[in-house]
């Protein structure tokens, strides 16, 4: 997938999930200020992006992402990692899961 294609996929996901006008989403839009998303939305974006990347995201990396541009780069890196067959981060257990 080219960077262009990834960008348009990401825009599509954002527009569909959060009732945004696709035209208003720019590369330099910030997720939390410009697009008015919150932390729950952020979790949901990364769940949806897994369909695109085929990998479980590293939450530490995901937390740093602030702009659409960074999101596209993140997906690009994830796809590359999946192609290289890099080991995946372990599933995140929510707090309190003690089994």
């Amino acid at each position, binding site marked *: 997938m080219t960077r262009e294609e990834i960008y348009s996929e990401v825009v599509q996901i954002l527009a569909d999930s959060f009732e945004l006008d696709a035209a208003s989403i720019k590369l330099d839009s910030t997720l939390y200020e410009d697009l008015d998303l919150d932390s*729950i939305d952020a979790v949901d974006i990364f769940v949806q992006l897994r369909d695109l990347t085929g990998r479980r995201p590293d939450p530490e990396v995901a937390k740093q992402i602030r702009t659409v541009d960074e999101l596209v780069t993140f997906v690009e890196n994830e796809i590359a990692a999946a192609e290289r067959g890099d080991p995946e981060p372990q599933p995140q*257990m929510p707090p309190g899961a003690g089994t």
Partner: protein
Amino acid sequence: MTQTDFDVVICGGGLAGLSLALQLRQEQPVNGVDPILRVGVVERTARPLPPACHKVGESTVEMGAYYFDRMLGLGESLRERHLPKNGLRFFCGPGTEPLARRSEIGPVEFPIVPSYQIDRGRFETELRERCEDAGVTLLEGWTVDTIDLSDCDDTPHRVHLRHLCATGQSSATAPPDSSSSATWHTRWVVDASGRRRLLHKQLDLRRPSAQTASAAWFRVAERVRVDELVPQDEKPWHSRDIDGTRWLSTVHLMGPGYWVWLIPLADDFTSIGIVADAAHHDFREFNTEARARRWLATHEPALAERMDAVATEDFRVMHDFSYLTERAFSKHRWACVGEAALFADPLYSPGSDFLGLSNSIAARLILDDMRGALDEEIVNQLNDVLVRSGENFVEVVREAGVTFPHGSIFGAKTWWDFFHYWTFLAPYFIQGIYRLDAAEHRRFLELGSTYRALNSSAQRVLTAWATLKSSSPPRGSETPHAQPAGRPFIPLPMFPSILAERHVELAKPATPDEVYAKMVDDVELSHQFIQELVVHALSDLPPEHAAQFGQQSGLAAGDVRIDRDRFVVESQSRRTRLASTPRIGRDLERAVGRTRSGELPLLDRLDRALDTSQRATPTIEQPQSSGTLTHL
């Protein structure tokens, strides 16, 4: 011979009978019963049991898994000799659609509270050995002919047995005398004979169930995986299965009035079954192997094609399998457990839940009696819990068939059904509430009836939504993208969400007061939840169906608690809307998606449903005669 040979005789050594015998021996020291409890089990079949090709009932969910794993201490064996289960996974939509186009509802990751796919032949063989090791007298190859119940407290019941075959009988399990028949005297008698329902029939305890469905199932000596039904080039579909563990789920392929299960078993066997509602499918269309294969070719062609190359190891059918019970526990020292008490439906695999619950209640009552402390009041209360839980489960499945083809409606339904299960019955069982004495237990009984009313209400809303959806043409004006057949994937449970919290909390010990307080809070959440179902249904259905929806869902009759403000904000911007949507509503929307109500604002649809449309400008402050106004 002494006056009584046994304290407890269990008729039938299947999953329920064997685990009850083990449970009685294990719980006894804790309950201070002395001397050692004498437990006898009579079972028709003798070892060796065939592995894999044995019995239906392989899939466990939280309560059943907790029962075998934590309460009976069989966790190590379950993990080593059976398969860990990756939750329940549903594929909705007509089976003639490619699988990758059908909405999938299921866990994203392996569940936190574990469950298992059990190989029944292997598991029951192990349970028989464990029972013998624990000092249970297990009589194999013998059948119970009749049971003479004693009608007074000091005389034992008499269980009449007959020898079936002489083979496979070790001396350790030899009958009381060597003749071909015997009578056992016992203080307690337990019917665990499964569908044979020995005592249950004798006492005429069966109550009809409103669920009228039948089943057929194949056992095949090969792994049939759901991902084999989807072409490799469906990349996004396959990439959802990050760890390649989707096949470890109980897979449900769902269509109008039916579902088909795929359950992986150890040793590469697979169980494949059809469950179909009589209102939609004639049993005679799938009651033989050839017909069942033809039925699959019509309704689930991709699976049928995959199965063309696969030979059947065994094939069985069960006509109209659902029944309930009048009573399962008596102060006259008898009990019915497992399928000898009731079986409502296999959807969501509750068989082992009811088994664990009925066994645990029976064990409690028997041990109470052995300490001379059997309280009639608690017998009746606990009987009520089991009987009503069965009825409640029938409510869950009775009309479910109309929701199966619709991904978002069935998605909302599973979300509700799991929420309902994880907020009442599962914590009730896992936290051991059935062990309380009558005075302390009573409040849970009352709460149970509140929960059942909420469940009926939710099911009515869902059924009305699905029935009207099935009868309305797809919305023509919208592009396929704006109006997908449903979300491609609905995570269940989804993290973070209230539902996921309830799931995680199942594994955390809590005191009865804490359990009670949480359940009371969750009644409030249940009301909010049902209102959210109404929001989704009214947004989704064409406005001309709103009035009918109001009638069929119970909304017009005032059966659903409505807060009009919630319907007002639906038309506002996302930020404003989310700020005043209850958390559970946001969870549901994140999971199943949102349908915008389009031409007619949601509040107006609500008014049509409440049948108050004659009032042009309804005032928000004014309480509705047909519903309670509550601010969430």
